């Protein structure tokens, strides 16, 4: 296999992205990075799996030993910073945050004999990380393959002295119809997209939750979720609840094990 020399100056894409490489040392050590640097930093990630892999590799951890609590905390810190800068990706990153939180909570649950058979809650995440890492690695290799116009230069002669008959593309009237249908289909997708973008703000959801709880002393945890919503919407609600807890604006109360969970306001009326 023809592999490309790393020292080629042209090959300067994504310096931070080679997570296993030494380049990482140039990365900020803690989370408190100036926003501009953070933007650059985040731009180098290809999504939540990529970011998680980075966090794991940064600590020289084996994927199989992920300390879920630590990683979750770091991850959530990152996405909190991210929310202000990288709104476009927030949905997917938020989903991962919720998944991590869920895994963490399941690990904390007392284990009973009869669910002993159940899979470790981290297994699915680990599988996805391993699978993604395979393709990420191989895509770096493909990127180093010889390619036309970078490492392979094609030999051609000029043929413009040759009177090439100009053949214009031919179209049928039905091609027009089909194309216009495509346009309409796409336009439709557009309108739904616009509609989707709005509601995904955690801050906004926090306010809504506070308003809901304000009048009553407490509400049931489930009541805060609108099941009509898409999965992402539920995740936003969940994150909003976590955020409110962190800011000591609400409290979660569970009278007995596996009993009803209540959410109580801590804001003075």
């Amino acid at each position, binding site marked *: 296999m023809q592999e490309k020399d790393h020292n080629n100056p042209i090959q300067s894409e994504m310096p931070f992205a080679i997570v296993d490489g030494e380049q990482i040392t140039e990365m900020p050590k803690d989370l408190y990075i100036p926003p501009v640097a953070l933007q650059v930093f985040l731009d180098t990630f290809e999504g939540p799996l990529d970011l998680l892999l980075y966090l794991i590799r940064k600590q020289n951890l084996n994927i199989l030993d992920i300390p879920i609590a630590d990683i979750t905390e770091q991850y959530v810190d990152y996405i909190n910073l991210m929310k202000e800068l990288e709104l476009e990706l927030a949905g997917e990153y938020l989903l991962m945050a919720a998944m991590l939180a869920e895994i963490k909570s399941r690990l904390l649950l007392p284990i009973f004999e009869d669910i002993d058979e159940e899979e470790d809650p981290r297994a699915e995440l680990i599988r996805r990380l391993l699978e993604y890492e395979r393709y990420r690695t191989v895509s770096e290799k493909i990127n180093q393959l010889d390619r036309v116009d970078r490492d392979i*230069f*094609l*030999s*051609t*002669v*000029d*043929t413009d*002295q*040759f*009177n*090439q*008959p100009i*053949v*214009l*593309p*031919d*179209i*049928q*009237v*039905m*091609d*027009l*119809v089909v*194309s*216009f*249908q*495509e*346009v*309409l289909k*796409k*336009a*439709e997708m*557009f*309108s739904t997209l616009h509609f989707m973008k709005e509601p995904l703000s955690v801050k906004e959801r926090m306010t809504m939750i506070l308003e809901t709880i304000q009048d009553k002393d407490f509400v049931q945890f489930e009541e805060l979720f609108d099941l009509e919503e898409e999965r992402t919407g539920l995740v936003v609600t969940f994150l909003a609840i976590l955020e409110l807890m962190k800011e000591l604006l609400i409290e979660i109360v569970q009278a007995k094990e596996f009993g009803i969970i209540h959410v109580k306001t801590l804001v003075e009326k």
Partner: protein
Amino acid sequence: MINFNLKHTIEALLLSSNEPLSTERLFKIISNKHQITKTDVLDAIKALENDYLEKEIEVSKVASGYRIQAKKSINDYLNIIFAERTPKYSRALMETLSIIAYKQPVTRGDIEAIRGVSVSSSIMRTLTDRNWIKIIGYRDVPGKPAMFSTTADFLSYFGLEKLEQLPELPDIKEPKNLDLELDNQSNTLVENDNLPETSLN
């Protein structure tokens, strides 16, 4: 370098470059690595010309330098190669054309609003060159954008007489906003307010 052969290097450079290379340029590029003179370059090109006498390619000197081209003798084959390649229009072009056909008169902005991506100038040029679309007026809004409609040639191409003969769109539910958006803008039309069906005969 032991195996350096100026003639072969120049040949490969001329074949790889997309534009003719002058003696000066060849000299500059190669003398970076090898001790050569401009005369060496010229001699090598001469030798190349000589080698090609029996071949089906030739060195040709044009204003900006030397290039290698196919000899006329293989034109018959080239005809076949180039004719086999049936050109096709891109999806972007077809979509743009269909929007102009079904929604005319439209501005570039209208097309962009519907497709969600900007309209490339080369597409508009291709369509204009083919005389399938034309400017029929300017919308009376800031910037006075040109409004495009299809032409009589466009209809003739499909053997149609009137725009109404374009196939109806089979039961597609147009998103509300598409019509609305275009309707809102239609009040601002200066003239040519009616669809140009009648104007195209």
